């Protein structure tokens, strides 16, 4: 199992298009992947499910952790963390 945390940088958070981009990227991997909100309640969601991801309602500035388990776990975590860190192409104002 591989896991890594980061902070959501883009303004809209993991809603709308960024959420779709994220799910599409996650779905390319064989591993089971989860995304977890790092706070007191420790909510987590299947990273390949748009509905679960949306229901987490992750916003800009929140810390999240990606946890993957499977053959391509390292690559999955690296790719998804890089995607979040890229800000989903949203420009800073």
């Amino acid at each position, binding site marked *: 199992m591989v896991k890594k945390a980061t902070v959501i940088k883009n303004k809209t958070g993991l*809603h*709308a298009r960024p959420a*779709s981009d994220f*799910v599409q990227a996650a*779905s390319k991997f064989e591993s089971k992947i989860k995304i977890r909100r790092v706070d007191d309640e420790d909510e987590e969601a*299947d990273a*390949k*499910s*748009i*509905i*679960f991801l*949306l*229901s987490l*309602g992750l916003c800009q500035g929140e810390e999240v952790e990606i946890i993957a388990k499977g053959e391509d776990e390292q690559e999955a975590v690296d790719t998804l963390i890089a995607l979040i860190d890229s800000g989903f192409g949203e420009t800073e*104002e």
Partner: protein
Amino acid sequence: MEKFQGNPVSNGIAVGEVYKYVPYQAVVEEATVGAEEVKAEIAKFDAAKAGAQKELEAIRANLEKNDPEKAKIFSAHLEILNDPALDDGVREKIEDDNFAVKWAIEKTFTKFIKMLSRVKDDLIRERIPDMQDVKGRLLRNCDGVAEVNLAALTKPVIVVAHDLFPSDTASLNRAMVKAIVTEVGGATSHTAIIARSYEIPALLGVTGAMDILKDDQVVAVDAVDGELVTDPDAETVAFYEEKARKNAIHVAETKKYLGVTPVTKDGVRIEVELNIASGSVQELENAKYTDGVGLFRSEFLYMGRTELPTEEEQVTIYKKVLTEYGDRPVILRTMDIGGDKKLDCMELPVEENPFLGNRAVRLSFTYPEIFKTQLRAALRAAVAGNLWVMFPMIGSMDDIRKAKGYVEECRQELAAEGVPYGEIKIGIMVEIPSIAMIADIAAKEVDFCSIGTNDLTQYSTAVDRMNPAVSKYYQTYHPALFRLIGHVVKSFNEAGKEVSVCGEMGGDKLAAAVLMGLGMRRLSMGASGLAQTKKMITHVTIPQVEEMARTVVNLPTAGDVEAYLKEALADVL
């Protein structure tokens, strides 16, 4: 004839016959199957899913050619259809609980919809109709029924429905839909987005519309003022047809000029700013077309509630507006309560003559704690952008000094508490003739001023603007006002301080030209005045408006001024 209210989400007006649209509704009942049938139910699910997939891909492919924005909606539907969590959910319910396929779909979707409905974010909750749409598509495919939608309309109608799902609207024939009326739906719903993109007038949230209205009944839909009139008489139809015609012209103009940079024909850049009240999403939609907020009427934060807004609450709202505008200035007017604005959260004594009474900054001085809460919030929010704080109803230098004293007090308190705060500019609203007359002295004491033409007119002409008996004496084009404004503008320009106008005059294309002629380079107005004012600006030269200003201040009456301006600007407007 009866009138009903609705939420106008897509501008326009139409009169036409009702067509009640009822999409296919699959009947779902609680049902289980025997263990031996589980395999067959799973196969039914696979078939329904494949059918839905095929339909969605076809719609999307069709839309991608000429409407890629709408195609995205169906990409989102495909995403939901293929959501592994949903898929697992349905399969588990069939395999483990022996649910019949339709019941399994119903239960699984309901569970997920519930989950989304608990999210606080409006944008996410607006995805619920997408889920219901996909659910409906799956259930219909289980029944083996072909899709029905709004593509089949044969005459132009007013479509009335409980709600419209994206699938219903994506294929609709624009030429056959005069207007859309639904019982539910908000400004960010799919129906609203689609209606706006097709430029179909839409009135949503008309409670009971499906029961009230009958097929082929004639109705007038006014999606400008949010009204629906049933069985309008000839006079009413004529009224709405005329209103529709005028509205269409206005909309076309707006579109053309809203986005242009306001530069005069001889190359002078005029700043066009926006007046806002609450900082709502709708208001801020115009942020991209404006050079700043020329008037943030903060008193609206105090109205329609039983408790005063807290410091934190105010910080959040001010920051939201400041962030939206970035480097561009946001002029926050401290609360202008009293006069015609009453509060539920504060009991104020009834006054004999409220417009000449304890209002605006005078009231702030009476309740320093409330005033300081607002000033602290403003100072704290200022870290997020370019904030200018403006005091209303300033009549003397004493008022200016006193208000500035409170700002300084708040600064020191925040510094002592170690709370971060930002730099602000301090200015005054010029709306009392006494301060206008000594604008040259005031300009030394403040960073900027903004002229509130409504109150300046009221106080200069001695007319209570709420009293209809004297309304004819309230003369916006009174030459005295242009003389007075000219003095203020000149004084501030000479002192090198910013001066703007934020009353109705700023968005009045005739008066705005004169203001420019008097030396004003910043005009602030409500959203509806933006396009026409920008149009005026781009059609005049500075020498031309200067000539107009010189003429106007020497005309004898308001009537003469208006007639002269209409003629002078006839070519431009």
